């Protein structure tokens, strides 16, 4: 048993354990924190598999940004879990069916290595002396450039859609224009008036 194997089991056990805790934790904030722990251990597994770029991107994107927003929302929601659990038995069969389908598909993906052994050789890119990120770049921006661009377009549409859905122009809201504020001059707004005492304006 070597050191990487030891760390593999460590990461894997924590990942599975915390993934279980995500669905069993009573407090939604705890659940999100366990989800973050799962992401973290998944990135540890990526690191062990030699995909260091993927591992770090997983941390930057999922843990550093997406999960923060999850946490953000969950902390602000006042979720009553007693009422959420009431329909549990009602929805349980659907959940079980979806779970079984998902499990079977996962097994099929993992089993493809057994069914057709030539898949294994395709999974490893024959790139010696090229580091991870360079290898990804060489494939992503040449062979898959159209897929990459269309994925970016889809994300752009989603982003614009989110903005359109939430942007509201109210007529009675006073908005600030910092350029106008900074550009104000005393001569335009101030008037010095000499008032004789006892006379008023």
């Amino acid at each position, binding site marked *: 048993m070597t050191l990487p194997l030891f760390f593999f089991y460590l990461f894997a056990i924590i990942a599975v354990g915390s993934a279980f805790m995500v669905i069993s934790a009573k407090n939604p904030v705890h659940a999100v924190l366990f989800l973050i722990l799962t992401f973290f251990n998944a990135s540890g597994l990526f690191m062990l598999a030699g995909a*260091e770029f993927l591992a*770090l991107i997983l941390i930057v994107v999922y843990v550093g940004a997406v999960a923060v927003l999850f946490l953000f929302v969950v*902390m602000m929601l006042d979720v009553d879990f007693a009422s959420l659990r009431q329909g549990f038995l009602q929805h349980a069969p659907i959940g079980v069916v979806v779970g079984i389908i998902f499990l079977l598909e996962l097994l099929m993906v993992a089993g493809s290595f057994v069914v057709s052994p030539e898949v294994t050789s395709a999974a490893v890119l024959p790139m010696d002396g090229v580091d991870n990120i360079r290898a990804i770049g060489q494939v992503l921006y040449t062979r898959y450039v159209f897929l990459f661009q269309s994925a970016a377009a889809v994300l752009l549409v989603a982003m614009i859609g989110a903005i359109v859905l939430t942007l509201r122009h109210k007529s009675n809201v006073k908005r600030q224009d910092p350029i106008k504020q900074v550009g104000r001059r005393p001569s335009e707004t101030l008037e010095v008036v000499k008032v004789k005492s006892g006379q008023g304006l």
Partner: protein
Amino acid sequence: MDFILAALDYLLGIPVLGWGMQVGFVYKALLLLVSLLVFTAFILLAERKIWAAVQMRRGPNVVGPFGLLQSFADLIKFALKEPIIPGGADKILFLLAPLLTATLALTGWVVVPLEPGLAIADINLGILYLLAISSLGVYGVIIGGWASNSKYPFLGSLRAAAQMVSYEVSIGLVIITVLLCVGSLNLSDIVTAQQEMGLANMIGLPQLTFLNWFWLPLFPMFVIFYISALAETNRPPFDFAEGESELVAGFMTEYSATPYMLFMLGEYISILLMCAMITILFLGGWTSPIDLLPFIWIPGVVWFVVKLSLVFFMFAMAKTIVPRYRYDQLMRIGWKLFLPLSFGMVIIVAFVLQLTGCGWHGGMA
């Protein structure tokens, strides 16, 4: 048993497997940890002295000569006081948050090269690792604010979350412009690239190394990174997470004694990490500013620390001089000013590099 032996060899440097003598991982890490903590203690004192000088006070001057031991006195005081945990607090998370902040801040220092070869882990994706670690810093703040079960900490942590997530974007884009010029994500490579190319080499005066560094060609990015680093570490003028005029002490309101100290420690170590990032990305890391005799005798570590302290001086001066921003203005400059600016610079830098054929291409030419 085999992996225990391997671990012994790797961590403690006991060559049980006959892999040859190497300095154990643990010793290196301990050395870095201790020197970092001592450095933080003095940098804290230096910061207080700088504020005092700006405000025409003397600053701490009682404990030890010139108050040099003030930070250690503070440490003892923090450690001996009773930590108070509020009644409604989530106890585990409440104590986990400061630990997380301090640990994550220290973890980032693993990849920082103080001199050629003098990093605990000189990994290929060093800068991405630093970005990942600094993006995790927000968790200590959010968890601490939520676990306190109190209004002001909660508001503070919400502000901090939004602020840190927004400024990460511009920091990431600034890093991308530097990476375009270097062609490698290794921190040592970034410093080496600043030695081997640049303005000084172009005009035929390779002795003036400081003209080679990226602060000159990427000056707008340097400024954006500096301001974003202030916002990312919740430093004044962007310290809304703990703005005392609005939120008592923000996410740290309920903290006392050692947990509070860990928060402060983590904050300052991550500030130093940001200073180190600026030093590496824009100020040439360990290289001496002038490549002539009296200067190149000074070891690289000293130059690194001098530059880091200089950047920290800029951080401290920003705290003393600049008044606190308003929260919506902070978000405005983050999203409406820095994001388009740095996007534009990424495109411009990429165009210039492509058209002129400049750039270091990861040392592969």
